[in-house]
């Protein structure tokens, strides 16, 4: 059953079209990841879903409510977490939870148990007296999540919940999301991190307000139809140009001093040998070279590159990469 149903959803700001004809159905129980570069329209999409922005055109239904006319009524069924920390710094952890419990009309008798459970869940039990403003970034995010869960919403909308948080806190946060997902919650989460996209049940790639791709991560990787050869040359600058010029190489992505070479699926082993041969011929040392399964990050960069090239073709002033 689709709990979120969007048809040509469009939102204009003064000079830009932030969301451009989005059509998407999200089913109950999905952990849906919204990925895309900055300015792609992820935040606008989530704000539209949370009823925080007016719809310019198109249809949007969340649960059984039409967002155009019933945006207020949908609010008690969703939990929305803004990208910025948006809790009250002067209130303690407990007071923040109590505040949202009151606003969401959580029955008084249910509060102590639910609060205790959420604090436990978020690992904040020992900090419940501390003011929110004095928590670390990761703890603030977890508190914000706990506050959006206090009324047991049917749908969770999380806007880049792990941006600006250290890797360990990020992992903890995602473990919580996975637990919620396993409990049957419907979650829509936007993220700039591709390793997080890997943990979603389905991923929508947004680009310039449009949904450029939408499928489970494995399917997206399959659509990519590529294998990745990781090369660690001693001199990656010189190696990069040589490898890019080789036959059958789709693209070369640079990761620090490593090169990730995308080649057609099924040709990986063959291309690997050719790369080794070429590097040897040009007397370029290579520390390590191996075949690896493609990851979301490579798929994402590849897709964005293709999309950028398509856009650029229509506009002669934009230099092609």
């Amino acid at each position: 059953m689709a709990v979120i149903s969007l048809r040509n959803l469009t939102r204009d700001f003064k000079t830009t079209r932030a969301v451009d004809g989005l059509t998407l159905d999200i089913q109950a129980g999905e952990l849906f990841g919204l990925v895309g570069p900055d300015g792609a329209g992820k935040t606008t999409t989530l704000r539209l879903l949370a009823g925080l922005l007016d719809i310019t055109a198109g249809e949007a239904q969340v649960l059984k409510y039409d967002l155009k006319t019933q945006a207020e009524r949908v609010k008690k069924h969703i939990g929305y977490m803004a990208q910025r920390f948006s809790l009250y710094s002067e209130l303690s952890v407990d007071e923040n939870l109590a505040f949202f419990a009151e606003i969401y009309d959580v029955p008084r008798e249910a509060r102590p148990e639910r609060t205790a459970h959420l604090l436990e869940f978020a690992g904040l039990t020992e900090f419940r007296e501390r003011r929110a403003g004095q928590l670390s970034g990761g703890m603030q995010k977890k508190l914000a999540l706990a506050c959006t869960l206090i009324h047991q919403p049917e749908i969770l909308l999380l806007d880049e919940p792990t941006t600006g948080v250290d890797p360990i806190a990020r992992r903890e946060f995602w473990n919580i999301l996975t637990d919620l997902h396993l409990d049957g919650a419907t979650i829509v989460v936007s993220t700039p991190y591709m390793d997080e996209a890997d943990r979603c049940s389905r991923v929508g790639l947004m680009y310039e307000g449009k949904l450029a791709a939408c499928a489970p991560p494995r399917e997206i990787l399959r659509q990519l139809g590529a294998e990745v050869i990781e090369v660690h040359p001693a001199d990656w600058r010189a190696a990069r140009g040589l490898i890019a010029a080789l036959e059958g190489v789709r693209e070369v992505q640079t990761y620090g001093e490593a090169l990730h070479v995308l080649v057609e699926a099924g040709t990986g082993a063959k291309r690997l040998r050719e790369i080794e041969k070429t590097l040897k011929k040009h007397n370029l040392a290579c520390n390590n070279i191996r075949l690896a399964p493609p990851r979301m990050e490579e798929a994402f960069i590849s897709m964005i590159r293709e999309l950028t090239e398509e856009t650029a073709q229509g506009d002669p002033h934009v230099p092609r990469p």
Partner: protein
Amino acid sequence: MMNTRHVWAVARKELHHILRDPGTFILVLLTPTLLLLFFAYALTTDIRHVNIAVLDYDRSPASRAFVQQITAGEDLDLYAQVGSFEELDTLLVHGKIKAALIIGPDFSRDLMRLQGTPIQVVIDGTEPESGNFAVDHIARRAETFVTETLGRQLQGMGLEAASLSPLDIRVRAWFNPGLKPRNDIIPGMISMVLGVPALSVALALAREREHGTLEQLMATPIGRAELLLGKIIPYLLVGLFNVLFIPALAIAWFHISLNGSFLLFFLLSAVFLFAILSMGILLGVFMRTQAAALALSFLLIFYPGFFLTGIFFPLASMPEEVRLEAMFLPGTPYAAITRAIFLPGSGLEVVWPYAVMLLFQGVVFTGLAALFFRKKL
């Protein structure tokens, strides 16, 4: 439907903020008092020790006695006795003196003959306050001097000085020595400093917008009126604390007397706070940043407080349109109320039209705020 628990949750949260954030605490609880002290002193400090010079062409015992009479006390200080007009000019130009007294050569003769006794006073026009003070003072002392001298002379002639008194009394009314400006200004001032909570409430809404907490609140099912009322209530409470404290300060510190009922004053102050806070929240609805809210609050709450509410410039001196505009600022009727209750000690039977006006303003402003405040970014 309005849910009072939601209102109270927002109000409690806001109170926590006021009490825990030092900046807000100072702004809301201490600023009105400090402002009152500051204004009261800056605007009503009595002028004293004004330097004057005397150019005495007469040099008679009578003229010396006259100068002594004038410079007795702390009001005017004799800076110099000069011998020429040029010397006077130099002293005035260099700002050493604020006024100069010139006594003509026939001073004592005219005085004895009961003729008009011309005295010339020159003042520094760049500082008319001190100069005028000196003129007033000299004129007042001159009256006393002349009456006393004449009185002695008349007594010598076997006449009663009292027979001349009607003339003197009428003149003296001009220079009412008991006039204390504070009595008049401070009640009006109270209405202005109590505008500070309105500024805070405008800032409070803009602050939530800036910090992103408003975005989170808008994503909840809280009602618009619940949110706005919840924001107003804590500032109303804090404002009422100020209403208790500030008149007490005015009475104890400035010796202003409250001639009317304190209860009436307190209740009408609550109505005023409701009106001005509604105005503040209306500003907060439209302003996106605290800086903008601050600027607009000053423009719409404090400047009109100075110029339009009749605290400093009588409303009667304004054109009709401006007077109407002034009446739509809560400070105007409230200034009238505070003065009426403090000075003549009027009751509700006199001030009720102003109270109705305030109530009306509060309802209109809150209504507009609720109308224009949308739970959209």
